[in-house]
């Protein structure tokens, strides 16, 4: 097989090109240093900032692989962040220490359970009620943020309890904790999908749900699990994001994250029609989006251009993925060669 036919060829090339452009304009862009007991540099920064998007996009990849779509992940991020922040709370004591209202592990567990419950709700609407995925998750997308605001009474909840900040700001063995979380999730999913039959089942369901069901695959339960996992991943991202900014903003946390996640999945080469998916591609897709943002800031381009560049990228990628378009270009090139 030719290198250019590998599923990851185009996403990886895009990422490398972007990095090369960065390095060209700013030679120190690619340097990584060891400072204050941890790795330091633009590349580490990109990896660290892309971590929440990677986590959400991994969940989204599986949902899209079973012909679904989850546009409620941004709202789930807000809900999980709110639950964790409310449970940790934190009051200053006389000694200047901050105590949490509930033990940290309880708060994190509660946030993740609530997130998983959101996913179960989405999954039930899709599998049991037979709704279109985009409509089923639209309900939670609209109502979810309202619920999060109801919990916080419309306020931004600030967290003062320092151990919670480790998730989004801490380092473990010199590497950001958020990156460890994203890598662990990726590793876990990779093992689960390549070493068990689950990966095959998901591909089968995405390829043809009816045929998969007839072949004896429990399509309904697997789809339900996939939606639950996607929301759980969004919950994890919510914890990282709220830990990073040391607060929970029910109205703005994870705003437009669903669109970035779908974009990361598409950029990575997963087919939106279901069946074909690549976890590594999704990780690269998330990195492309973050690199683009970092690049625009580091090149001193006004950040206003970011959205236009993003739009151009999406147009380019979706046209490249369209068989019709490739055929048209190929015919044009051949026609041109004939005339020449």
């Amino acid at each position, binding site marked *: 097989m030719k290198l250019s036919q590998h599923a990851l060829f185009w996403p990886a090339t895009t990422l490398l090109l972007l990095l090369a452009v960065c390095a060209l304009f700013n030679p120190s862009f690619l340097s990584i240093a060891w400072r204050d007991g941890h790795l330091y540099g633009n590349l580490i920064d990109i990896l660290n900032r892309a971590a929440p998007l990677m986590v959400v996009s991994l969940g989204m990849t599986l949902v899209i692989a079973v012909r679904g*779509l989850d546009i409620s992940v941004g709202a789930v991020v807000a809900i999980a962040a709110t639950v964790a922040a409310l449970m940790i709370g934190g009051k200053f004591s006389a000694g200047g220490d901050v105590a949490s209202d509930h033990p940290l592990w309880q708060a994190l567990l509660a946030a993740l359970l609530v997130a998983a419950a959101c996913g179960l709700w989405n999954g039930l*609407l899709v599998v049991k*009620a*037979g*709704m*279109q995925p*985009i*409509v*089923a998750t*639209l*309900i*939670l*997308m*609209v*109502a*979810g*943020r*309202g*619920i999060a*605001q*109801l919990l916080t*009474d*419309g306020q931004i909840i600030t967290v003062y309890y320092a151990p919670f900040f480790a998730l989004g700001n801490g380092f473990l063995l010199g590497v950001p904790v958020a990156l460890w979380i994203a890598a662990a999730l990726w590793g876990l999913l990779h093992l689960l999908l390549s070493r068990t039959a689950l990966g095959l089942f998901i591909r089968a369901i995405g390829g043809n749900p009816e045929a998969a069901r007839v072949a004896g695959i429990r399509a309904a339960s697997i789809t339900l699990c996939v939606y639950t996992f996607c929301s759980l991943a969004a919950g994890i991202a919510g914890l990282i994001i709220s830990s990073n900014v040391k607060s929970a903003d029910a109205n703005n946390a994870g705003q437009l994250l669903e*669109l970035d996640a*779908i*974009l990361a999945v*598409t950029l990575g080469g997963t087919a*939106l*029609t279901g069946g074909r998916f690549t976890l590594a591609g999704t990780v690269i897709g998330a990195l492309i989006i973050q690199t683009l943002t970092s690049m625009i800031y580091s090149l001193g381009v006004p950040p*206003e*251009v*970011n*959205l*236009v*560049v*993003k*739009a*151009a990228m*999406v*147009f380019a990628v*979706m*046209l490249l993925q*369209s*068989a*019709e*378009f490739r055929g048209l270009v190929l015919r044009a090139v051949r026609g041109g060669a004939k005339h020449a």
Partner: protein
Amino acid sequence: MSRRLLPLCITVLLFIGMAAFGAIRYDGFLSPQVFLNLLIDNAFLCVVAVGMTFVILSGGIDLSVGAVIALTTMISASLLDAGWNPFAAMAVVLLFGAGFGALQGFLIQRFDLAPFIVTLAGMFLARGCCYLISTESIPINDPTYAAIAQARIPVGFGSSLTIGAVIALAVVLAAMRIAHATEFGRTVYAIGGGESSARLMGLSVSRTKVGVYLLSGFCAALGGVVMTFYMLSGYSLHAVGLELDAIAAVVIGGTLLAGGVGYVAGTLFGVLILGIIQTLIAFDGTLSSWWTKIVVGVLLLLFCLLQRLFEGRTRKAA
């Protein structure tokens, strides 16, 4: 009664029920102006939702409308700032909106791309272009725009409508005619029912699909013009998330998101229901704004479940 009319009837009954609830609960709710304000305050949403109805009837979706509205207000404001004739500026933005929509429709139709992704990219592009024009809000001081914004058309009982609201009503009437009495409208329903069968019937599927997005882009631009009258400014952050309100209005109006079933009149009532929820919350005074989101979510859930039930029945009957 025809099964197809059932969701529309439920929508209308729900609206009447909510109005009755408000009338009993709050003093001064049952005045004509309160109801006319529903249309005045949601005129731009109504125009956009009508365009969205056609897209959804054809089985597609258009996420770019909110961003196109913002871009319309920005272009209008900057053209007026540059001393353009206000009517020329309106014509330019309407043409631009139609062109933007047609381009998205072309990409969707010609290259068989997912409407969700194409219009998502369109949303990024339009919002990004807003920021390129200016990140600040641009005020509009043009006398014609100000006069249109302040004009009130009396409709009796001491109440009045704005020009924006009249435009919205005109759009609804025109859209009802297009949907139910033209070849284009019937083709849209046919595509939503089944694209390949519509093609086999010899209908001009390709042209109609591009036309649907053109219409939605045009409605978004017209909604943007109406919003410009309402806000008298251009701003990049106008109408953030409006596409979701428009989709919600269409669904609550009884249109099936799978395409093929629904009425433009239902969308008008969907918009009015979204408006009356906000009015009820404003009249109550103790409820916070986030209750709007929760109630809209619950209504969406109810209508989708109802539609599933209704679909199941028709299938069994068939």
